[in-house]
């Protein structure tokens, strides 16, 4: 074995060991690295009331209620779901621009005694789909997609709809 190949094996061995250690560490801290908990996780193992967690999921269509009073921040209630269960959320403050029914959101706050989630901060999480306004309008008009009930159809199904042909139809 030459000196070079010995060095190569040594570097390879060190890399393998270091990657393994990192992998195990990440595995061990996996629960903490997760940015938010889903509603079904929250209901399955409820955190202690008052303990700050992040709750993430989709805003249920038709669940958004907003009470506006003069001179006060709006008081909002909505439900967040992951498709299996839903948790009601209460929040006082201004929602981000992207907030809407059907949008994914992450709320920071704590469970209350009545089983609802008291949010101190609400973040909107957009998905990985990017589509022109005209296409979105055409999909909604033709009834192929309603943004309130989840993600848009795959890009391949609407990529043929260029801006010009959409305006023409």
């Amino acid at each position, binding site marked *: 074995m*030459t000196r*070079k*190949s010995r*060095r*190569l094996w040594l*570097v390879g061995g*060190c*890399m393998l060991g*270091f*990657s393994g250690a*990192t992998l195990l560490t*990440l595995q061990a801290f*996996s629960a903490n*690295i*997760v*940015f*938010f908990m*889903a509603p079904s996780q929250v209901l399955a193992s409820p955190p202690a009331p008052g303990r700050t967690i992040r709750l*993430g999921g989709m805003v249920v269509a038709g669940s958004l209620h907003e009470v506006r009073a003069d001179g006060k921040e709006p008081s909002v209630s909505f439900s967040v779901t992951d498709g299996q269960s839903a948790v009601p959320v209460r929040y006082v403050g201004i*929602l*981000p*621009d*992207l907030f809407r029914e059907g949008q994914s959101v*992450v709320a920071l706050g704590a469970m209350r005694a009545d089983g609802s989630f008291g949010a101190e*901060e*609400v*973040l*909107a*999480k*957009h*998905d*990985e*789909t*990017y*589509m*022109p*306004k*005209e*296409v*979105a*309008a055409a999909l909604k008009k033709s009834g192929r997609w309603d*943004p309130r009930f989840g993600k848009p159809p*795959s*890009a*391949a199904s*609407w*990529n043929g709809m*260029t*801006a010009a042909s959409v305006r023409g139809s």
Partner: protein
Amino acid sequence: MHVAPFADLSSGTVSSGSAAIEAVAGPPPAGRIAGLLHRYANPGRYLRLGDRIQPFLTWPALLLTTIGIVWGLFFSPADWQQGDTVRIMYVHVPAAWLASLGYAGLAVCGLLSLVWRHRLADLAAAEIGPVGACITGLCLVSGSLWGRPMWGAWWVWDARLTSVLVLFFLYLGHVALVRAFDDPARGARAAAILALAGAVDLPIIKFSVQWWNTLHQPDSITLTGAPTMSLTILWPLLVCTLGFTFGFAAIVNARLRAAVMETRTRQLLLAGTGAAR
């Protein structure tokens, strides 16, 4: 005569005798790779090649970046829900891609340096470091400017953002470590170890959005699936990415050429003062 001061840098080609011995005894694959590597480890040979390819990096970089940015900022459509804010993507995505690619380059240089004592790889690593740190900084800043209007937060401690921040600090550490020793060879050795160890962060960045739920959205462009974005947005993004990549290569190549010439000048000066004594 002008070869002599460079014997140190081009030692790989000089020591081809050991490679010949290995060839007789049936070379291990590493030996053959080493032979190929040493062919391009010669700084003089690199300098000639680097001079020749510089315009083929600079001009495509300027052209493609200009086309991509103008296309992306003025002619591509706004996103249906993000509006014009989505145009930050035409800077953010190329910067993020180059942050990872640049660090992968650092790791390859680190391997070449540690195993094959490739002197040119040491010089290349020292030159990639600052450029990579800048582009990672650009990625973080543009992402923050994008996050504020869309998510409602400048910064969140989710897995994707945190792992890229770690990458930024790895770059800064590398930049500092290369220059931390009086003996450049020791600095290069320490930085090579850091570059290799830090490469563990690259798969974490890539898969963070799949392994853990994050606020950052998953990748729109993957090797396995169709892109989840409109072609009218995808094309300018690809042109921008290509332009930025050429730009990165052009800057690194220009810096590396300067570094090789600087080393050569210093050695000639040293040889000159030695002869004077």
